[in-house]
């Protein structure tokens, strides 16, 4: 599954969108980023927006419990998650889930 070995420079370019709360730390609108996996995509996001570091993944590298990643509209958070390959250009939405009270 994992294709992290592909250098980001040769990886496909994706459109990344973050929801409202995440805009406090990251991109205010959609962003173009190269990555071969969701994990690598988050690396790229963090490099461009240092305040996103540890907001999506904790320091063990695990996707946080209430963060959801959608690829072309499909939620991969609970399935392939960070290991999900990105072999073609995709639209990726990163949301915080509806929770709390």
């Amino acid at each position: 599954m994992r294709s992290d070995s592909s250098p980001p420079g040769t990886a496909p370019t994706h459109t990344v969108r973050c929801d409202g709360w995440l805009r406090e730390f990251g991109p205010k609108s959609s962003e173009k980023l190269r990555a071969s996996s969701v994990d690598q995509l988050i690396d790229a996001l963090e490099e461009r927006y240092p305040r996103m570091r540890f907001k999506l993944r904790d320091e063990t590298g695990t996707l946080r419990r209430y963060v959801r990643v959608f690829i072309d509209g499909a939620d991969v958070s609970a399935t392939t998650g960070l290991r999900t390959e990105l072999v073609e250009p995709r639209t990726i939405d990163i949301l915080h889930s509806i929770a709390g009270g």
Partner: protein
Amino acid sequence: MAKGTVMRVLVGTRKGTYIVEGDTRRRKWRLGAVAHPGDEIYHVVEDPRHPGDLYSAVNNMFFGPMVQRSRDGGKHWTELATPLFPRRKDRTFQMNDTSPSTPVPRALNNLWHIEPGAASDPETVYLGADPHLLFRSSDRGASWEPIAGINDHPAKKDWAPGFGGACLHTILVDPRDPRRLYVGLSSVGTFRSEDGGGSWVPTNRGVLAPFQPNKHPETGQCVHHVAIDAGNPDTFYRQDHGGMYVSHDRMERWTRIGKPLGDDFGFGVASAPSAPGRAYFVRLDGRARVTGQGHFQVHEWNDRTRSWRTLISPKAFPGHFGVQREGIATDRLDPAGIYVGTTTGQLFVSPDAGRSWQLVPFQFPAIHSVSVGGPTPK
């Protein structure tokens, strides 16, 4: 009243940070800045060495813990370095909640307490976190170093979390010697270091652990909070799961003082600089975890006469109130102000060491912590 000064009550709630402002008469209060909407704020504190500097322990359920600081009394906040450790080879603190003897890599959970260092050490700040972690910053929060002596304590494999998590919730610094530190860890107990955190000894002798097969274990003690006596830094007041205690010898031995109250369960305790030898507790029903007598009450312990007195008429504030471990605070004025926040969002204030009480006219979300800053120039 000192003109041009402001008192700030810093309220950490389940839904954000609230700043309440008043003057040194402490009779009228108004809501000031509100920050971190929706975030769980376990502690907010003003740094008395740098008036107007506030630190907030922000726990965002979606994006994790963050240390935030304000340099202007709470109007504006900036996220500081949060003491996370991305380099896994450097991660030495490990614990498994369900099997504490099985170490696993684990992320930092909630931030619980921020403690400014000694007056003689004006750049130092301490941070307590879950899972049973202590950090020190030597640059006012710009960076943090783990204190390995407690974080990697040889007995840690046997430590388990309490209901609120594996929190390191109490940090006390001896004002005479900044190398003498004390910490309180939920479900573990208290420890003292004489060498700035290099080594730690458990300090729980005399404390009853009614929930353990061994009723007086060295650790495995459920300390809820500890306050240091401002007039005598060798004296400490402890609210424990197993009752209310005092120590007069740097926590070498604890003596239970709460028995005359019957059920001496509770979470918070505070002492005031202008009232040495006295401590303030809110006694809770050990089962319901609210004021069991049917009204709000604060108990004052007089360590000289070894006696208790209640500070509030039973008719004043009827109801069942919960108060958490950071829910009681005092100020630095004389007479002492006493401040108590409840889990149902009331903030009680006494401006005169408990003689009179009022409710701040604002309904807060559930209150986790109360502390007091000032008087500070406006």
